[in-house]
């Protein structure tokens, strides 16, 4: 079975069969991709959310359009844990090809809700079985054969809702929202939900211990995926030029951006205040981003590992010629094509140093959907302030999965368009040198093409240049620019988003992590405290170059674990390059890189082993 350690069948926090488990379990919907189950799973997720219970959803899908196994896991957690859990207690089995393995993966005392024909009872005796004649019910309520595949999904939603005691009214209002204006579609779907619900109520007496009960933990919260949040951030950053090439798992960043631009950035006359271009490849996408950034537009692209590799040469040009642009990298597993639909954090080093020569980049590391939004708009400000490409490193888990979040806040500061001289400025100054550090912040002033002043123009080039943008091969002139670029990067430590720290000030042990690792990390810290009585300080890194607080954090702890989702300890490596030699020896790595989202137990076990607990 492709889900790897789901097969371990270990039940976390095992409880006796008779004891009720309320709002604290996972549901695994095993289906086939291309069957249209995505919207049914979304309704189920939102129904639990609607019950006021903290929830997260993860789609584990193949790199394929139709016919291969897909699993969608929904975790309800009264404690607010939203990371992946190794085992799911409730199985919804719809895929004949994986049904046996899916059933065998259930923990003892687990629940199997399944298409009757799959006959799962033959495989286990320690599981509660709820067979549902989905095909039969579907055929009865849906005369149109073409629609049955989709309607069938809603039938299982109804059965699951009834069995877990989710209020039908909550499912109904969720559906109504989903199909807002399409009354007929709503009626068809809700009819299916109700048929499944009624069947379960009449035929399947509750025998298991898993319940969803109404709570008050999701009030005022939203559900969104990281890519939609990032796209929203870009729109509220005032992006005007988007150039991209489709690649999983970043495509939905641009789709979300485009949808919002079409809604909110068209003039009353029907004219667009934005341009979205599907480029011929990622080389062209980044070229367009830099051309637009050079000419004064807020420009962006979104890609994943293979696209990042193609962008390498241009990334160096952007760094050296000092051109703003924003690049979202939604990471998937590599090397090469790797596993395109599995998550990873293994692009960090290649992004930080993308291109040949002495090149380094500002990289922002959002750790939640809210930060996907916030760091997206921060990236545009930083790119124009620092006059450099800024990378936003997300990953498939954060980007494509649904997360619960506080509502996003409107930016409190105006757009920072950076240091740009106008014709009036040039009149006053009598001219300018593009790459001269006149303010001591290592950032020169630039002009935009079209500025009507005889002294406005300068020559932008990736070849050796002096501080007046003139071509040079002179050693001292070359070094002058390179040193200033270094100082600019050093100054960026103070401008990028600082780390977030959780500590009580007593622990000698620290943990450093970034991005989507945060969800599992916070749960793991609770496990370590609860199970081993150890309190560990935690700092979540939000950007490269590293803020000074990160150095201080390492300096004030005896041992520091760096938890990340790649094989080669890339974050730890980057830290080692940055830290004083005597601090480097403090770092230890906890690594996870099998393509599945990180779970807390993996961290806790590895930590316990390494600490000898």
């Amino acid at each position: 079975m492709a889900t790897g350690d789901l097969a371990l069948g270990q039940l976390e926090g095992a409880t006796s069969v008779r004891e009720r488990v309320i709002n604290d379990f996972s549901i695994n919907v095993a289906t086939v991709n291309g069957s249209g189950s995505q919207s049914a799973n979304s309704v189920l997720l939102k129904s639990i959310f609607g019950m006021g219970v903290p929830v997260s959803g993860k789609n584990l899908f193949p790199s394929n359009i139709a016919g291969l196994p897909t699993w969608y896991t929904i975790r309800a957690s009264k404690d607010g844990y939203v990371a992946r859990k190794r085992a799911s207690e409730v199985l919804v089995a719809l895929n004949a090809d994986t049904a046996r393995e899916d059933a065998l993966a259930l923990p003892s005392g687990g629940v199997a809700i399944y298409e009757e024909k799959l006959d799962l009872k033959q495989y286990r005796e320690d599981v509660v079985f709820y067979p549902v004649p989905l095909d039969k019910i579907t055929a009865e309520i849906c005369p149109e054969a073409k629609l049955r595949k989709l309607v069938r999904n809603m039938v299982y939603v109804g059965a699951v809702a009834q069995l877990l005691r989710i209020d039908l009214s909550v499912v109904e209002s969720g559906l109504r929202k989903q199909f807002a204006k399409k009354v007929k579609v709503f009626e068809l779907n809700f009819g299916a939900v109700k048929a499944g619900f009624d069947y379960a109520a009449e035929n399947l007496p509750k025998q298991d211990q898993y319940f969803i009960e109404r709570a008050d933990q999701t009030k005022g919260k939203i559900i969104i995926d990281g890519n939609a949040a990032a796209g929203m951030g870009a729109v509220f950053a005032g992006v005007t030029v988007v150039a991209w090439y489709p690649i999983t798992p970043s495509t939905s960043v641009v789709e979300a951006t485009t949808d919002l631009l079409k809604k909110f950035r068209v003039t009353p006359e029907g004219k667009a205040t934005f341009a979205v271009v599907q480029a011929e490849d990622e080389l062209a996408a980044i070229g367009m981003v830099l051309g637009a950034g050079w000419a004064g537009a807020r420009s962006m692209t979104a890609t994943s590992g293979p696209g990042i590799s193609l962008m390498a040469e241009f990334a160096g040009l952007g760094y050296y010629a000092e051109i703003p642009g924003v690049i979202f990298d939604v990471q998937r597993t590599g090397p090469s094509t790797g596993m395109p639909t599995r998550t990873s954090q293994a692009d960090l080093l290649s992004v930080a140093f993308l291109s040949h020569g002495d090149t380094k980049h500002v990289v922002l590391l959002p750790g939640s959907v809210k930060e996907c939004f916030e760091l997206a708009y921060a990236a545009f400000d930083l790119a124009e302030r620092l006059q450099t490409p800024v990378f936003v490193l997300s990953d498939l888990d954060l980007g494509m999965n649904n997360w619960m979040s506080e509502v996003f806040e409107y930016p409190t500061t105006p757009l920072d368009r950076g240091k740009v001289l106008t014709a009036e400025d040039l009149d006053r100054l009598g001219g300018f040198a593009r790459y001269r550090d006149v303010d001591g912040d290592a950032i020169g002033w630039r002009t935009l093409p079209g500025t009507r002043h005889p002294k406005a123009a300068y020559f932008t080039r990736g070849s050796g240049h002096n501080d007046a943008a003139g071509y040079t091969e002179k050693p001292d002139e070359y070094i002058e620019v390179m040193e200033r670029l270094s100082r600019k990067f050093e100054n960026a430590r103070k401008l990028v988003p600082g780390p977030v720290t959780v500590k009580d000030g007593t622990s000698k042990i620290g943990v450093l992590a970034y991005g989507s690792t945060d969800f599992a990390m916070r749960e793991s810290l609770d496990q370590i405290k609860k199970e081993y009585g150890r309190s560990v300080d935690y700092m979540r890194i939000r950007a490269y170059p590293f803020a000074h607080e990160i150095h201080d954090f390492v300096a004030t702890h005896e041992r520091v674990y760096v938890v990340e989702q790649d094989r080669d300890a890339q974050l730890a490596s980057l830290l080692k390059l940055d830290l004083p030699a005597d601090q480097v020896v403090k770092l230890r790595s906890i690594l996870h890189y099998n393509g599945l989202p990180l779970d807390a137990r993996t961290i806790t076990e590895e930590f316990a082993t390494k600490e000898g607990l």
Partner: protein
Amino acid sequence: MATTAPAPKLNHIGLPVLEYRGGKTTLCAGCGHNAISERIIDAMYQMGVEPERVMKMSGIGCSSKSPAYFMARAHAFNSVHGRMPSVSTGAILANHTMTTLGISGDGDSASIGMGQFVHMMRRNLPMIYIIEDNGVYGLTKGQFSATADLGSKLKTGVVNDLAGIDTCALAIQLGATFVGRSFSGDKKQLLQMLKAAIAHKGTVMLDVISPCVTFNDHEGSTKSYKFMQDNDEPINEVDFVASFDDIEVDYGSGEVYEVEMHDGSNLRLRKLQEGYDPTDKANAVRTLMESQQNDEILTGVFYIDTQKPTFIDLLNLVDEPLGQLPESVTRPAKATLDGLMASLQ
């Protein structure tokens, strides 16, 4: 007693030609590219283009260095090898009110940059794209490029055994709306074509044969000055009358193909090949393919379409440059975000 120099001649926006000059060239003496730079200066000056309203874009190679040698008052972007089209696309999207001039070479466009060249032509963005075509890589000392003709010989005696890519035929097929070929040594033809290019709205692709005096100007080369002087076959005589010119030229009827340009100028193409219609796309491509078979080097304006929408039209962009829209336009209001948040609850 000091004498005052005569006042320099000014163009119709009041600038002397000196204001269209650039830095001193570092290319070889006699390089065709220098002559092209001179014609660009003449054309921009005569057309009265504001230098500050021009973006000079280029890739990498001898040709791509040349924007440093003309119009110092225009912003320039010497980008990476073969990628000038994408950088230009971005720059034009950010500010489509500019006159954009791209300078590329045969290596930069027909080899490393072929992918981007193809898609640039397809989009019909408003820009002038010039290939300074000498059939060899100059900066790496004389290897063949992909436009070198079949049978052309290198100085070392190596013979090119692949047919050259005809960038004009390609550009016409792909969707460029003004396509022609000229020769750096033909001052009159090149100047007229450049002036018409400035007046055109859409992608202009000009392949300008520009001999490399150091690596490809010898006996046996098909891109030498001598070979071009002997084999240049103009398909039409190009005459451009700008909208602000007060000239009436009278040709006998039936001899001239007259094209009214977007800005009210007139492009007059006196037919040198019987029945050649520069708006007939299929015929233009066929004529070019036949000329390649017959070892002829056709020059002139091969194709023009003044009606096709540009990429800017297709994107339906506002008149103002996107890069200069104020925050009030580009950042949606707080109520918009609040509405989005409510829809996600």
